[in-house]
């Protein structure tokens, strides 16, 4: 979809989205900002909004942000494509991927 205005910017970091927030559920408590040992996030300038993912490529996928999130459903882990694991239904042989 063409945009009216395009901002010139460098390539985004890869991977750039280790978690997906649900802005309807997240109340911007920033607990995830605090528990992250590598500072992937910064608090959003507007209070109550989900944090901004500033250093996604430093994520080590420890999961503490999602594990410790006090509001279920506010954030979901989003594995980079090349890291998504597979499983197989033992009875049917059907293959699935995360």
């Amino acid at each position, binding site marked *: 979809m063409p945009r009216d205005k395009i*901002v010139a*910017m460098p390539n*985004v*970091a*890869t*991977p*750039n*989205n280790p978690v*997906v*927030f649900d*802005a309807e559920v997240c109340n911007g408590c920033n607990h995830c900002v*605090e*528990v*992250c*040992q*590598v*500072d992937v996030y*910064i*608090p*959003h*300038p507007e209070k109550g*909004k*989900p*944090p*901004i*993912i*500033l*250093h*996604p*490529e*430093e*994520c*080590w*996928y*420890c*999961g*503490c942000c*999602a*594990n*410790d999130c006090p509001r279920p459903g506010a954030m*979901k*882990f989003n*594995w*980079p494509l*090349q*890291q998504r*694991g*597979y*499983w*197989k*239904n*033992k*009875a049917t042989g059907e293959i*699935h*991927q*995360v």
Partner: protein
Amino acid sequence: MTTWHDYLIEKGHAPDWPYPVRFDREQEIDADVLVIGGGIAGCWAAISAARQGLKVALVEKGDTIRSGSGGPGCDHWCNAPANPLSNVDPDEWAEHMADRPYANGIGIQIQCREDWDTLLEMEQIGGKIRDTGGEYTGAQGRDEKTKLMISPRYTTVHSYVPGAIGPTTFKSNPDHKLNNVVIRVWGTTFKPALKRECKRLGVTIFDRVMGTSLLTENGVQGARVIGATGFNNRTGEFVVFKSKATVLSTAGAGSIWLLSTELGGYSNMHSRTMSGDGTVMAWKAGAALTTMERTGIIGIATGLKHKWYSGAGDASYENVPIVDANGKRVPYPIQGWEDAGAMAPTPQAMEAVRKGILSGEYALPFYGDFPSMPDVERRATWKLMLGEESTTKVIMDTFNAAGYDESRDLLQSYRFIEGASLPQWRDAGSHGGIVVDWDLKTTLDGLYAAGTQMFSPEDHSYCAATGRYAGRKAAAYASQVSQAKISREQVEREKARVYAPIKRSAGIEWKELHAGIARAMQYYASEFKTESLLNMGLGALRKIEEESVPRLFALDPHKLMRSLEDVSMLTYAQIIIHASLERKASSVPLNFQRIDYPALDPPEWKKFITVKLENDRVKTGELPARYWGNMKGEYDARNRDYTGVYRGK
């Protein structure tokens, strides 16, 4: 709108730095005991020093609540032969574990004697160590009376000791009862409990502060350590710590050989913050280091690999049978009750499976056959073990949320299809470290080390027990000495070094520097080691130090931290090469091949090589293989006043 580019597109500008910017502002802190590194070892050191009634400061690069490699969790409390269900004598078990070449007998003896007490203290402060709710009733290893869950690991066999593929007979366990030295625990509860206890005891916690250097008496290298410097990686504020005793409990430099700092990976086990800062601080202050020439091969994650962890069964691990794509059992040890806790396949077993793959006997990919397990054992592995281990809880949750049902589905293994690690992907993370004595004191007065900071470290419970011990010993020392005056000149010199990258906005940024260091190490200090290659490596690193480090730029306090971490890793890399040049023999346990000295583990080289700085010149030395003497005797002699599990408030 949670990505940076979304914000930019919507607002038309980048977000402001969210924290106050305080470069060049300085805070001065007084403490009896200063602990640098707030992971498992550091928290325990701070707690045990504070319980002696001392004023304790704890410095942590992340937030103590979940920081460090053990921050997310822990599933196995290893080497706990003093637990009530154990069938071996703690001292005999310690001797056995210390028999591994280049192990740290001091740390292991402390772990074997004290980590059960440490675990009980963990329980006192809110960590969960027992199946009190009866969730795993009927699981093998669960004791109804104590509700402890013994793990099959090391039950009779353990392949950590080279050649130990058959049962080891212990004098204290002549009938080969299960050894019962490893306990399954609910480790996700541990780190928040440790932070809470630090706060309750009045430990002053400096979260988001990176330690950058140690301060010595009169600023002299090799003199007593009397404090440290650090800076806040969100605000840039400088902190000067004055202390009577200092405990270093940071970790090794995990990513030295890795070109890319990105794609941390599925289950890296260590974050980027593991950058060897403490080792380099100790080095610059003049402390002796050892086993720095030892490296591992990266076998897990880092974005290049795709595994749950480093363990035997890959996608399965404890008790999970591995089957091929047609459901045929693959002859792999599963670190379970059936194979008595064997950790990893022997080279022979690996070779047999590989041949089977090539001949069509086993079809790829392999799978962890969770559905074939008894329900309670499946839950004990999937929910308790993977659910409580560092970094695997989120993997498990993600799989379940995506529809994976462990009672119905086979979990894919990436063994073989992801290939073997390249010899150039090395890991210096948990090998070399600081030389310690029986007080876990380094070769410098006033400086102690614990956990992964010491040479040849072990696991989570080792870090906990040695941290607790180092805190106790550092407190005893701090009670006897007075604070010394810091050298302002030393502080100013460090401040100039720390802030140099923020004074530039062009040149080399940290990722480029990192890749430059990694490339030099891949070329000159990897699979093929010779005197001339190693010297070329030193030259390449010196060139980076002289030409690139002065051009480092950092645009904010976070990037400044990353830049300084890479400068740490540059020094760490140089130390590795100095140590490698000094060892003129090859060694299997050190993963060290000198083409110019091919003899493998000749008896005269079964000793520790030490390196340190004296007047800024590298000085090498050596220590005998078991320099710590009689483990039981030495431990007992120094711990007559040890009172066991904490009974105070």
